[in-house]
């Protein structure tokens, strides 16, 4: 009589398993976060982690399936898992193949605001010597267009860049002409407080497809407190500008960034409500950076990583509820992290990369022609620290700049893949090197990670997002929508 083989006959031999490279972090006495080399993670107890590491896994026990799914184990006689990890690793690092897509032109350091947290150390409005001239802009443009990236994004920064709008007008025209024979695509963004927005600017930006990025710190009282200017009307001008751009150029032509000050910490709901009221498409709950007047006026030291994390978690909870009511409104930092955690797509955000995004992700052309490895690097230079100055547009080519000893050393010395603690950290595949931040805060481009607020924030954000994805299905559905 014909029969069926016993279930055991269909089971693979557990001895045929091998452990793939894994990392883990202890979250509690009996809670571990375990991850593979491309950032997939699972929560385990101590017993489960021990069983995983000793390959004490049996088909059907649940842990065996989780370990296979997360690529923590593979079959000894199959290379599929290794090839899949290799493909995914290559994809995650593919930002290296399209180097330096972002080019920041500091067209002036003048500004009519006097924000105490200003991270670029603006100069007063009447100092014409802080404007970039056309010859400098022309040289900078040649460098930008010789970068390998097929899509070159030119961002106009300040000070307040609209104070030198004639130069912006010239750069956009020249860039469009020079890009054609090179086969480059272009994007333009003006980072402006919108106080000087007028019809001429709107007409030009509409005609040439120029986007706007502005600052909005929250409701009127908070914004005007953070961003003082003569007339105390920064908020009124910003929201009027946002409305004008949306009406004249379209709803997706302007984005806004907020900066978290001590006064923001207990007002995250008000801040989010302001963004919703202004019909902005999301919010970036952004901490202060340790540069410029934020240091001189001691704004940076008024709260720590844990206080910012509490602010961010409370804001995220509020934002998730808004999304559950049917309004798609992402928190952009979470969205960036989720794309790192849930996909292998390389992302453009320079702080979430290793090798670091300085120079390889962005170059900054200062008003006087000096070239810096990042916006934060030029902020440091305005404080007298020129550690990340790469050269000058009049003397150096793109190749000179990205192969300069300064940049190569900073990138090589800050690799998280080989750094103490980072090299075994479960969060590392989803994190990044931030050599300028660590130089600014610890005088060490690599950073002593147990003392790093960047590290504390990253670990806090990733852990919280992971827990929501794992344990809160309704929140997870919203978060997955942000990642795509």
């Amino acid at each position: 009589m014909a029969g069926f083989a016993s279930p055991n006959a269909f089971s693979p031999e557990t001895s045929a398993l091998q452990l793939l490279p894994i990392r883990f972090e202890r979250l509690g006495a009996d809670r571990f976060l375990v991850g593979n080399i491309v950032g997939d993670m699972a929560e385990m107890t101590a017993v489960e982690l021990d069983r995983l590491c000793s390959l004490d896994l049996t088909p059907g026990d649940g842990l065996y399936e989780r370990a296979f799914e997360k690529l923590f184990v593979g079959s000894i006689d199959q290379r599929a898992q290794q090839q899949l990890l290799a493909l995914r690793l290559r994809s995650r690092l593919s930002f290296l193949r399209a180097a330096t897509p972002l080019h920041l032109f500091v067209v002036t350091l003048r500004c009519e605001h006097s924000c105490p947290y200003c991270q670029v150390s603006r100069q007063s409005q009447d100092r014409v010597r802080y404007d970039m001239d056309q010859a400098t802009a022309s040289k900078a443009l040649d460098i930008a267009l010789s970068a390998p990236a097929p899509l070159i994004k030119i961002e106009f920064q300040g000070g307040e860049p609209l104070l030198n709008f004639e130069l912006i007008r010239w750069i956009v025209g020249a860039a469009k002409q020079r890009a054609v024979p090179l086969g480059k695509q272009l994007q333009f963004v003006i980072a402006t407080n919108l106080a000087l927005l007028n019809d001429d600017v709107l007409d030009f930006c509409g005609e040439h497809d120029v986007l706007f990025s502005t600052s909005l710190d929250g409701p009127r009282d908070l914004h005007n407190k953070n961003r003082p200017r003569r007339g105390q009307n920064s908020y009124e001008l910003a929201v009027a500008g946002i409305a004008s751009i949306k009406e004249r150029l379209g709803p997706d032509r302007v984005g806004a960034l907020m900066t978290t000050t001590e006064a923001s910490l207990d007002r995250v709901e008000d801040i989010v409500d302001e963004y919703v009221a202004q019909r902005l498409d999301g919010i970036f709950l952004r901490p202060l950076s340790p540069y410029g007047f934020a240091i001189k006026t001691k704004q940076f030291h008024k709260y720590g990583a844990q206080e910012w994390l509490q602010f961010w978690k409370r804001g995220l909870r509020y934002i998730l509820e808004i999304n559950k009511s049917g309004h798609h409104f992402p928190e952009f930092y979470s969205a960036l992290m989720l794309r790192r955690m849930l996909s292998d797509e390389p992302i453009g955000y320079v702080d979430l990369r290793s090798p670091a995004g300085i120079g390889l992700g962005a170059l900054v052309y200062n008003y006087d022609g000096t070239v810096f490895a990042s916006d934060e690097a030029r902020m440091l230079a305005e404080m007298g620290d020129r550690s990340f100055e790469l050269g000058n547009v009049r003397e150096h080519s793109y190749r000179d700049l990205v192969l300069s000893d300064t940049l190569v050393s900073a990138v090589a010395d800050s690799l998280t893949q080989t750094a103490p603690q980072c090299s075994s950290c479960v969060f590392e595949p989803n994190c990044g090197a931030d050599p300028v931040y660590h130089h600014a805060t610890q005088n060490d481009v690599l950073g002593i990670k147990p003392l790093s607020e960047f590290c504390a924030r990253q670990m806090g954000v990733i852990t919280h997002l992971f827990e929501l994805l794992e344990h809160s299905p309704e929140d997870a559905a919203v978060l997955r929508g942000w990642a795509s």
Partner: protein
Amino acid sequence: MSDLSASYTVVDFNASMQSLGALQEAAYRLIGQAACQIDEANGRYVCRLSPSQPQLHGDDLRSHFLNLVTDENLREKVNRETDRLRDVIVALAFGALAAEE
């Protein structure tokens, strides 16, 4: 002298059973919470832990450090078993696959 000895916590390990590398990694992760000085004496690694934060000292600090060492020992074991595979994966990602493009 007794005051000085009371200011730190001592944890020691049999040097023939405990890797120095794991102790050093655990000491690094302890930065900011406690400073760890590692000496070798009479076949034992002696770790002197000086708290940097008032809330973590004595038995709590000892227990925290032992957890860190336990984790580092497991990381060493995992690395020993998977380092070769990591090299294969990186070589596939940036060697063989790159050459095929």
